[in-house]
């Protein structure tokens, strides 16, 4: 029993460095073949030709591509992603500064999405074909088809501009800037650690709206998957067995049916979370959320290639890590795989 399981784990583990290498290679190549001249981004387009040539030499851009890649890889393993032209910080420092904001947003979003999406998915499946199922279908369909920037703008218009019940864009009121020391980088957590309740409530209020918008899409996805899984499982013979045992409907639904899909849902949840970590670009832009997505967009528009490559790598590694996590959880929790 243990050997095939260990083998599968070993295979999964072995695939990680290969995938990582591929990720770095592809990211690097895309960065280099883009018709963007990183030299121009640094010196500007009015610099004399000898300055341009010198900077090109300093950046190692005269070397063949594989040498450049080798140098990049060598620095990468030492944790050096180069310096951002735009912020003049190292890319690593920038990522440490921006990534927690994205994490905070994505984490809040996935919590909202799971807390809403999974129960309504179960409800829709149990009441299949009823009016409530149709209502849920419309809600989730909207979540799939509405572009996120439309929803984000509508949300800002309604809750911020018209009703004035939500704070505007940004991560916190500028009055509170730098009031709590950065420990985790998650503003809600740091303010709690510092015991600054005002900062906490402000950060939370700023978080709710972008997280809610972001959550809507994951919620729709989770609800639809939950409904499909539940419908499939509720047809199972063991559901009739559970009912024949005289169990309550709640127990039949949650213990027997939901218990069978929980593991699959955890995998989906992990992947949805990874998707949120990388895919919050538009939401971050609309809500001026100083996260990795915004950093990536601005870097790209400024031809700041070190920053673009670094941020892309972080996103890729995060996705990979969650894929691996989902895989491991599945093996760990499902008795049939175990």
């Amino acid at each position, binding site marked *: 029993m243990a050997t095939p399981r260990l083998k599968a784990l070993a295979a999964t583990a072995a695939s990680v460095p290969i995938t990582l290498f591929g990720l770095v290679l592809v990211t690097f190549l895309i960065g280099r073949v883009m018709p963007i001249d990183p030299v121009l981004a640094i010196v500007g387009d009015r610099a004399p030709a000898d300055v341009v040539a010198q900077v090109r030499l300093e950046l190692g851009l005269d070397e063949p591509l594989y040498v450049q890649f080798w140098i990049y890889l060598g620095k990468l393993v030492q944790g050096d992603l180069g310096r951002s032209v735009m912020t003049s910080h190292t890319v690593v420092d920038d990522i440490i500064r921006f990534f927690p904001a994205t994490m905070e947003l994505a984490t809040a979003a996935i919590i909202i999405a799971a807390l809403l999406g999974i129960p309504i998915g179960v409800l829709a499946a149990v009441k299949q074909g009823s009016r409530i199922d149709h209502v849920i279908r419309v809600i989730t369909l909207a979540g799939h088809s509405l572009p996120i920037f439309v929803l984000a703008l509508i949300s800002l218009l309604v809750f911020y501009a018209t009703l004035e019940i939500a704070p505007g864009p940004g991560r916190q009121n500028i009055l509170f800037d730098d009031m709590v020391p950065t420990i985790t980088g998650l503003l809600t957590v740091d303010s709690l650690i510092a015991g600054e309740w005002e900062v906490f409530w402000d950060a939370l209020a700023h978080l709710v709206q972008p997280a809610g918008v972001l959550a809507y899409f994951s919620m729709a996805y989770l609800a639809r998957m939950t409904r499909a899984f539940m419908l499939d499982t509720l047809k*199972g*013979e*063991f559901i*009739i*067995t*559970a*009912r*024949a*045992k*005289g*169990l*309550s*409907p709640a127990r039949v639904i949650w*213990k*027997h049916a939901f*218990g*069978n899909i929980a*593991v699959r849902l955890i995998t989906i949840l992990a992947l949805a979370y990874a998707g949120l970590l990388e895919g919050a670009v538009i939401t971050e832009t609309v809500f001026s959320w100083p996260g990795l997505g915004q950093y990536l967009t601005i870097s790209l528009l400024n031809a700041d290639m070190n920053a673009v490559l670094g941020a892309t790598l972080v996103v890729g590694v995060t996705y990979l890590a969650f894929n691996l996590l989902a895989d491991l959880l599945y093996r760990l929790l*499902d*008795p*049939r795989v175990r």
Partner: protein
Amino acid sequence: MDINIQNLTIDFPTAQGTSQAVRGVSMKIGREKFGIVGESGSGKSLTARSILRLLPDSAIVRADALTFDGIDVMRADESAMRAIRGRRAGLIMQDPKFSLNPVMTAGAQIEEAVRAHTKAGRREAREKAIDLLAQVQIRDPRRVADAYPHELSGGMGQRVMIAMMLAPDPELLIADEPTSALDATVQAEILRLLDNLVSSRGMALVLISHDLPLVSHFCDRVAVMYAGRVVEELKAADLAHAKHGYTRGLLECLPTLSQEKRRLNVMARDPAWLA
């Protein structure tokens, strides 16, 4: 305990109108071993499941009477039905591969049945479950209790299923083709086990099968169903004197070891049987 079914009909809505799965079935079952025999689609499973009201949601059920020990199953509310299901009547289905919950251990599933109907605590339920596993002649009940269904053979799975349904000491056991998914040698063991348990506990048994000789061997009375109707009901001992063409046809199709090798009969179906 007695079951009274009068003029039961079960319809299913389809795109082309309604399909009649059960068409006016009547039977009375007491504390006995009662067999229902028929081919696939004859309505035998639906008839038996209607006693516990465990039919698909789309089923349209009508009956002049459908009672379990005087309780009107047609009108009882869910909690009244739950007091019957498991507690007073158990249901064993064909294939334990599908009828056991794949992500719960065998022990947990039996404990759940114990705790659903008694005030037993966790540990007490566990002991009861292991005792039940021993009663269905599992040699290593503690190990099996911790096993998941996919780790058990078909015969073991069906024993777990029986143990689970016997847990609350029901008065009636409905066994819906309990051995069809098992190997021939295991079939006999499971049937003998069922027979012993039912007899020693003084329970009633409704055995559903397509195997006419098997049912007549185990049961006191047999109802033969064809196309949603009971075409013949008789004492198991009188099977050889069956009058209905369908029953006779079934018997004539059976191969025997004693007679010479020859082509088996093919049932000639009389359209009049459908009436």
